[in-house]
């Protein structure tokens, strides 16, 4: 499907990206910045300093109602039962007949109020799915079009934000609270997608520019989707459309720990059957022998040139100065330390299966 540029949506920061001379690309139905000064520069800032991502394209919903009565508990895979207020949890939303609709983060605002954060591409499907499966007494509200979002990420992000949000230090990993920022009471969570210490700030759509400009003035560097992908691949985080797909299995993608087997949820029967039959493929992380980077959809071969799988995400990793990636291969071939191969003829090259994460020196939990 090709979407013409005019059909693509713009975040409240679109003009800012243009004036910063960002390279703009279509992503999930939006016109998004791919890079500003260059991916390597942005990478260094993200791993050493503090960067800003415009993530206003993502979807946000509020649900009011208690866990069981609302129907929320059966829509998502993660355990929400004993989840404290002001914490976040990552999980998935499955189709009843198998396959993943989206991955998402649930925020517990009150005992009986929740915020759900979803990807931009599948957002409209997500809305339909919630509306179909929530119980009539639950109140569902899609606030995506009023909610801008800026991710502040990097080892310096806490010290950097203290100036604007003095109490930011109290937030633990995967916790959130309401803070007054530029006169607005907004949700800020200690979450992210980079493997570094970082925060996500949910902000009124029409004031997001003001926050962006303030953060830039204070010295954070803008970073685009290009480096966002590099950072998440190095940490082995899955991306919707790559490791998580409508026809894919969360078990093969190694997401078992985000599934609460003790509760009922949509899609559970399919997973139980899959579990019983045993998974055929598994997600691996690999590092190339050189600077050559495998790309999504490259075939993965064994030493005897048998096709054993496919790359789901690949990139050059500035940290190692080598190609790295994720891919699905036959389960029995996926042992750490095994070699896998890509390409043909003079383009043939090797990689080694490694432990996740490839990059483990991040400031995430510091």
């Amino acid at each position, binding site marked *: 499907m090709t979407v013409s540029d005019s059909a693509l949506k713009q975040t409240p920061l679109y003009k800012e990206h243009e004036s910063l001379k960002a*390279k703009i690309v279509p992503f999930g139905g939006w016109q998004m910045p*791919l*890079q500003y000064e*260059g*991916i*390597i520069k942005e990478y260094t800032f993200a791993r050493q300093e503090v960067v800003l991502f415009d993530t206003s394209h993502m979807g946000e919903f509020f649900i009011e109602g208690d866990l069981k009565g609302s129907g929320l508990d059966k829509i998502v895979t993660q355990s929400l039962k004993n989840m404290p207020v002001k914490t976040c949890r990552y999980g998935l939303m499955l189709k009843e007949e198998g396959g993943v609709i989206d991955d998402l983060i649930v925020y517990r605002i009150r005992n009986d109020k929740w915020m759900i954060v979803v990807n931009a591409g599948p957002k409209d499907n997500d809305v339909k799915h919630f509306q179909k499966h929530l119980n009539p007494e639950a109140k569902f509200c899609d606030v995506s079009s009023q909610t801008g979002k800026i991710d502040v990420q990097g080892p310096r992000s806490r010290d950097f934000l203290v100036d604007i949000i003095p109490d930011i230090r109290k937030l633990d990993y995967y916790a959130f609270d309401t803070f007054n920022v530029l006169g607005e009471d907004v949700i800020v969570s200690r979450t992210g997608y980079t493997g570094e210490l970082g925060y996500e700030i949910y902000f009124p759509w029409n004031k997001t520019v003001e926050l962006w400009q303030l953060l830039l003035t204070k010295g954070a560097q803008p970073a685009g989707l*290009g480096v966002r*992908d*590099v950072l998440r691949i190095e940490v082995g985080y899955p991306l919707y459309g790559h490791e998580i797909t409508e026809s894919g299995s969360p078990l093969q993608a190694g997401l078992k720990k985000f599934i609460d087997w003790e509760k009922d949820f949509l899609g559970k029967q399919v997973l139980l059957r899959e579990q019983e039959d045993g998974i055929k493929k598994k997600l691996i992380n690999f590092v190339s022998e*050189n*600077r*050559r*980077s495998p*790309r999504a959809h490259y075939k993965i071969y064994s030493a005897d040139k048998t096709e054993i799988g496919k790359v789901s995400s690949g*990139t*050059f990793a*500035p940290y190692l100065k080598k*190609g790295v990636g994720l891919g699905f291969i036959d389960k029995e071939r996926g042992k750490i330390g095994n070699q896998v191969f890509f390409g043909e003829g*003079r*383009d043939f090259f090797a990689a080694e299966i490694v432990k996740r994460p490839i990059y483990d020196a991040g400031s995430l939990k510091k």
Partner: protein
Amino acid sequence: MEVLDSYLYTHEHEWIHVEDNVATVGISDYAQNALGDITFTELPEVGGEFEQFEQLASIESVKAATDVYCPMSGKVIEVNSEVVDDPELINRDCYEKGWLIKLEIAAPDEKSKLMKAVEYTNYCENLS
């Protein structure tokens, strides 16, 4: 976007600078900018012979991979090892230090299939 007057260009964004029967080949400013930070360059071996528009080299950036095609037929007489050791040199200086190979050209007539600077500039402007 920088385009050098004395060079000729292909539709795939290679440049060639012909002096007598020897030519230098590289990728254009448009190409290096579109690729972004270049991370890997694979060049042919000296002595290799290529037809016009045959695949000559591979270049990868952080997020993309592309083939480089030979702008004119000929034999490779020198390769730039500096762009293998430091691929970002192509980003920094694609027309001078970031050259890829030198070619002994076999068929000077093939120039007629290439674009001059003005033509190439128009071509690029119509792409975006």
